């Protein structure tokens, strides 16, 4: 009876490879329109769909595939976690390699598994009051964000360092290494080395999730993952479930001790269908071959005790803390450097929908979209911000709106995008070379992409630092033409702080209010 377990493992591999493929193709590939839904994993995620819909107070057409997963879960139980979840696959892979020989001491209390439900309650309650925290816990969001911001850039760096070394090495080595490098470059590596704020901490948090495997298999999935909790609730009455032909069972307990989710409890014939992720290991290892997965009803499960106190506390925490965040001063005076991607909804709706998955940062062609720390408050952490000193918004590019899974960034047609203003540039006249009478420079003007230039020159006499009067071409910003793309700030040759900078003033979406 090895076949179903093999099938499950194959499914995990296929899904993970698909995930990796879509991740790698969340990139400009000589085509203005991405040819397929690279964001499909997020759109399949009922937790993301639920939170964005609830907090955003809107029916979001993009997330309809999540409904399919929810319905399938009703029918099949929590198969998603065992068969489909790419984070689950990574965790299982870590388990099968790094933690293969780990002897786990000190059992994690079984009661901890209720935390995932309590987190879910907390998320639901806060989402109901427009504050969306789902980004902190959603496994798909975590995985894509981590790959985008940490894993992929780091991997890219390491591979580049290796092949750069080989490239510079003497003798025939480059002749062998370069074809390999060329292949990697065209299929896997980034076009240019991406860099991200918060990359180290995002990477460490992810390692933390994996490190918990040291204490318990699928620690994250059992105890913390609110998507797992949601699917458990939806799937606990699933028709497809584990069943034992009790007549042949010797009560050897192998299935119970081997279960990665501890879903078999007390009596080996009793399965907690909320916890069982249908990995089918028990079926594969049962020496008597009496375990089956089928549509037939087995023995009733023992319910997880969420405790009334726990549920109330979580709901209260979710709901009653919302006002504290709503009276943070940035609601009244937002950070002037908080420049959102083109097509971003008004700030309140934007944060309600944005799941911080990092898709927009991954696809941003100039690496300009970065995760925030606290520019948008604590609740805005890891949401996208255009940091023009790192990279600018490419005038003819609409990719971020194409990959956003919840419509927090609207998909804009190119003509509309070109008119969408992210902010406005201003010239720091005390530092700008011609303004300060230092030297000629036209770099901001030459890069300005609007067809009628939003940066123009006026030739004016200025006294240089040495006291001579000279003509300089001084840049002026034409505010009704500037779209705030930030290329001037990116390219300004002053190496540290640019002399032409963009702030969010005049942004197209701006309404100046947070969520109602």
């Amino acid at each position, binding site marked *: 009876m090895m076949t179903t377990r093999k099938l499950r493992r194959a499914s995990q591999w296929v899904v993970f490879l698909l995930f990796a493929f879509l991740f790698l193709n969340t990139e400009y590939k*000589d085509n203005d329109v991405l040819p397929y839904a690279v964001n499909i994993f997020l759109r399949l995620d009922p937790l993301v769909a639920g939170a964005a819909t609830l907090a955003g107070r809107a029916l979001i057409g993009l997330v309809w595939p999540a409904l399919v997963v929810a319905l399938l879960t009703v029918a099949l139980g929590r198969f998603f976690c065992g068969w489909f979840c790419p984070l689950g696959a990574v965790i299982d892979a870590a388990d099968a390699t790094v933690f293969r020989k780990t002897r786990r001491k000190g059992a994690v209390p079984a009661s901890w598994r209720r935390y995932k439900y309590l987190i879910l309650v907390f998320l639901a309650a806060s989402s109901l009051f427009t504050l969306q925290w789902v980004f902190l816990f959603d496994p798909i969001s975590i995985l894509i964000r981590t790959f985008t911001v940490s894993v992929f850039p780091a991997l890219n760096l390491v591979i580049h360092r290796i092949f750069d070394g080989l490239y510079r090495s003497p003798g025939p080595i480059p002749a062998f290494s370069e074809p390999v490098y060329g292949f990697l470059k065209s299929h896997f590596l980034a076009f240019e080395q991406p860099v991200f704020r918060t990359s180290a901490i995002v990477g460490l948090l992810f390692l933390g999730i994996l490190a918990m495997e040291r204490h318990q298999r699928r620690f994250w999935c059992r105890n913390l993952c609110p998507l797992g909790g949601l699917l458990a609730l939806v799937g606990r009455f699933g028709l497809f479930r584990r069943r034992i032909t009790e007549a042949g069972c010797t009560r050897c307990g192998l299935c119970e001790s081997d279960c990665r989710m501890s879903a078999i409890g007390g009596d080996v014939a009793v399965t907690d269908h909320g916890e069982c992720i249908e990995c089918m290991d028990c079926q594969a290892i049962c020496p008597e071959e009496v375990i089956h997965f089928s549509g037939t009803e087995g023995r009733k499960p023992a319910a997880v005790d969420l405790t009334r106190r726990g549920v109330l506390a979580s709901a209260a925490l979710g709901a009653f803390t919302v006002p504290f965040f709503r009276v943070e001063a940035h609601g009244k005076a937002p950070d002037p450097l908080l420049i959102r991607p083109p097509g971003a909804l008004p700030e309140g709706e934007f944060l309600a929908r944005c799941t911080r998955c990092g898709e927009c940062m991954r696809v941003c062609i100039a690496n300009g979209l970065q995760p925030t720390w606290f520019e948008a408050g604590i609740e805005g952490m890891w949401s996208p911000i255009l940091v023009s000193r790192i990279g600018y918004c*490419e005038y003819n590019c609409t990719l971020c709106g194409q990959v956003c899974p919840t419509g927090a960034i609207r998909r804009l047609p190119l003509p509309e995008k070109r008119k969408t203003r992210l902010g406005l540039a201003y010239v720091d006249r005390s530092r700008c070379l011609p303004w300060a009478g230092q030297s*000629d420079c036209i770099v901001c003007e*030459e890069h300005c992409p609007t*067809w009628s230039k939003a940066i123009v020159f006026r030739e004016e006499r200025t006294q240089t630092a040495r006291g001579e009067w000279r003509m300089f071409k001084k840049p002026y910003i034409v505010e009704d033409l500037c779209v705030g793309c930030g290329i001037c700030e990116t390219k300004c040759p002053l*190496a540290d702080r640019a002399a032409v900078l963009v702030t969010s003033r005049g942004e197209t979406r701006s309404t100046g209010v947070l969520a109602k």
Partner: protein
Amino acid sequence: MEIAFAGAYHVVMTPDGCPFSRRRFLQAAGGAAGAFAASALFAPLLQAAIGKTVDVGVSSAASPAERARRAVALVGGMKSFVSRGDVVVLKPNIGWDRTPEQAANTDPEFVVAVAEMCLAAGAGSVRVFDRTCNDARRCYVNSGIKDAVEQFARKNRVEDALRIYHVEDRKFVRTSIPNALSLKEWDLYRDALEADKIVNVPIAKHHSLAGITLGLKNMMGIMGGNRGQIHYRLPECLVDLHRRVPVALTVIDAGRVLVRNGPSGGNLADVKPFGKAFASRDVVAADGIAAEKIFRLAPRDVEHIGRAMASGLGISSVGQIRLVEG
């Protein structure tokens, strides 16, 4: 083919000469026929006194490809610049995320025609690249140059010999420039440093700092690092760059010319049809003539061309130019 000695230039080209009075003097002196006659008579003598002459080919053929071919033929054909087996770097302008119609990048047909000539002259390999200002992928695609070059290579089964590729950071080599006026040291692209011949294929256009951008400025595409910084002393830096990496042939695309809001432009109203190509082994001569013919600017008044003339990079006066039209 019509050969005109541009003798009129050195008649009026005095060190303190002002371009406008020079032009007016020229016109007053009897127009084109008179100038032609005068130059035909006196030019050889004067040229002998000043120094050797340099040919600049000017073609007005109908298509970009034909213009490129004619212009190069007028200065002796590609075989006089590229030898059998040469590794050639062909450097077009692919700097901007703009379409060919917007005339911020060299016309793709023009680029392909020059590449084809290099291969026909026996070049072992032709390498096409530019360090772009917008995202490199977008520039390569939307300029039409990547597609045109790759399609030509595929169709003619010369994929190995003719390649267009992106610039990689690791291939920039810190290069010192002896006796530099300003650019003592910079990261330059290894392929350009190691090439046997460099064929410079700029598009002529307006430039907000340099006034105009032609062959001299186009070679900034082999520079790494923060290029914005050399704008502080652009003319000197360009001279230094060309001293270190001399160009074998410059072929200027002046089919469509961006006359305002360069170098990136975007607005089709700023693009004027001009229908010419210029070619010369001397980048300063090519730029000088192009400045005059396209933009009605006296070369010495374009600061970086004037500086290049004064520094002995190429011709030191337009009087040395022999215009070959066809």
